[in-house]
């Protein structure tokens, strides 16, 4: 804490952190998180039911995979443990994205049409930062430990040996995947600045996310090209996951995860900023 100058402290009266301090944004994020936890715990039974149903949802995907593998030994050369590993990996960036993206879905209706964006614009914080954290989806985060457990289970069954570098790579790849998702959906949410009302594009792309969690080899040429290079959802799940399982085949492609993600996040930011400049508030 630098403690110089009283004018730019965080809202918290006791021991706020200076704006330029490294921990300023993380500490604000924690405040947002605490707020959300308090809101959710007001309806405790509902919170637990939501959590359990979320776990049940992951369990249901697992049931499908396990039932499938009770009939066949492998899918395109990937066996049961490898498929579980890929799915487990996919859950990490996916759950991180889901936790912080609830407002993209509401963006058109709630923020642009009803004008709630005005409220965010007059606060001394980046608008996108507020948008991501205003509605934290707590239950969604539990996909993360589920994914870690699945990866740990299948890694031990497959006898994968992990060094410190692998964990570092894992961290970078997962964060990159989260950014990629954010870039894609931020861009789609920003369309609301130009076309008010629903465009139907977001649910369309949303439904494509299921394609990223299965081996890319199961898709034909055109679709495979689309998922790798045009709307590169394969970089969120399958490609980086496969690079841990079969590094010789997939590591070169997986190395592109970070640049591709940064490019898409940059694209999302460009669209977002162009949209913000266009925004004129609502009439009422």
């Amino acid at each position: 804490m630098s403690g110089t100058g009283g004018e730019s402290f965080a809202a918290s009266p006791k021991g706020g952190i200076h704006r330029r301090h490294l921990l300023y944004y993380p500490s604000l994020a924690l405040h947002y998180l605490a707020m959300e936890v308090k809101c959710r715990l007001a309806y405790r039974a509902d919170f637990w039911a939501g959590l359990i149903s979320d776990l049940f949802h992951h369990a249901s995907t697992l049931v499908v995979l396990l039932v499938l593998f009770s009939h066949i030994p492998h899918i395109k050369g990937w066996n049961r443990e490898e498929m579980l590993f890929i799915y487990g990996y996919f859950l990490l960036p996916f759950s991180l994205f889901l936790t912080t993206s609830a407002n993209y879905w509401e963006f058109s209706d709630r923020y642009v049409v009803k004008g709630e964006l005005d409220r965010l614009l007059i606060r001394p914080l980046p608008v996108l930062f507020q948008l991501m954290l205003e509605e934290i989806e707590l239950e969604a985060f539990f996909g993360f430990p589920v994914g870690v457990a699945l990866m740990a289970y299948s890694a031990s069954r497959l006898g994968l040996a992990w060094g410190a570098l692998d964990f570092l790579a894992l961290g970078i790849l997962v964060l990159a995947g989260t950014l990629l998702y954010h870039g894609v959906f931020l861009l789609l949410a920003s369309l609301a600045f130009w076309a008010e009302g629903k465009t139907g594009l977001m649910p369309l792309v949303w439904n494509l996310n299921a394609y990223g969690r299965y081996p890319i080899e199961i898709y034909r040429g055109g679709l495979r090209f689309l998922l790798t290079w045009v709307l590169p959802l394969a970089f969120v799940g399958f490609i980086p996951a496969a690079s841990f399982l079969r590094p010789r085949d997939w590591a070169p492609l997986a190395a592109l995860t970070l640049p591709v993600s940064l490019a898409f996040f940059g694209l999302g930011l460009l669209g977002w900023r162009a949209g913000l400049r266009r925004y004129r508030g609502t009439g009422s």
Partner: protein
Amino acid sequence: MSPVADRALVWGISLYLHLARNRFLSLLAYRANFWTGVVIYLVYFGSYYYLWKAVFEAGGESLGKLTFPQMAAYLGAGWMGRAFWFNNLDREIAREVREGSLALQLIRPYNYLGARVVEALGEGFFRFVFYALPGLFLAALLASFPLPASPWQWGAFLAALLIGFLVNSLLNCLFGLLSFFFLRNEGFLWAKRVAVDVLSGVFLPLDLYPGFLRPLLASLPFSLISYFPNRAFAGLLSPSEFLRETVLGLSWMAILTLGLALLWDRARRRLVVQGG
């Protein structure tokens, strides 16, 4: 029947038909979304189609008793049928209970739940005609699976779909009414939605589950929502099996309606209208 009662009946039926028609007509405003709607359903279908294609390549010509074209038809019917039977009745009812606008609904001259179900029917019909049927024909063309060959098979599919819709809507009403007792019950609604998606057989025909689970899953109401119409569409049901499923469907509808009536009676007495 006396002429007065007769007229009341006609009035009653035309009232509900009007509600369904109104919802259908109001949704016509969205017909510009036609292509995105169709593509969304195709994308849904495609994600499972490719997975199953790879599965059948690994498993040989058939899996369980199914061949791949039958499986593709099953999946097509599953995703397109979902456009018809899926609705947000549970959420809408929960919202009206929470916000207290239900009080206004209760003084209207119709059965509240009946009116909601009929409106959902109008909505489902819209999605079915504009998104699902074109999607189904396109999917059949792209994935080259056979469409029902006979009018009887089409009829069986549509009848099964209607039963599935009613069972799902009754379940939705039941879960929506739970918010009388919990005020905020999104968690339960999520749990129900997941249960419907898994146990109705949209993703996975119930035949592929382990043998000891099969009879249990096939007798639950969820199986009527998707497993039943999908098999009717793919031609996997003999007339006697179709009849048996229909009887099962009608029985579950009776049980659910009874449960709903009891719950509704208790819920009305608990109604708290918040705010003022």
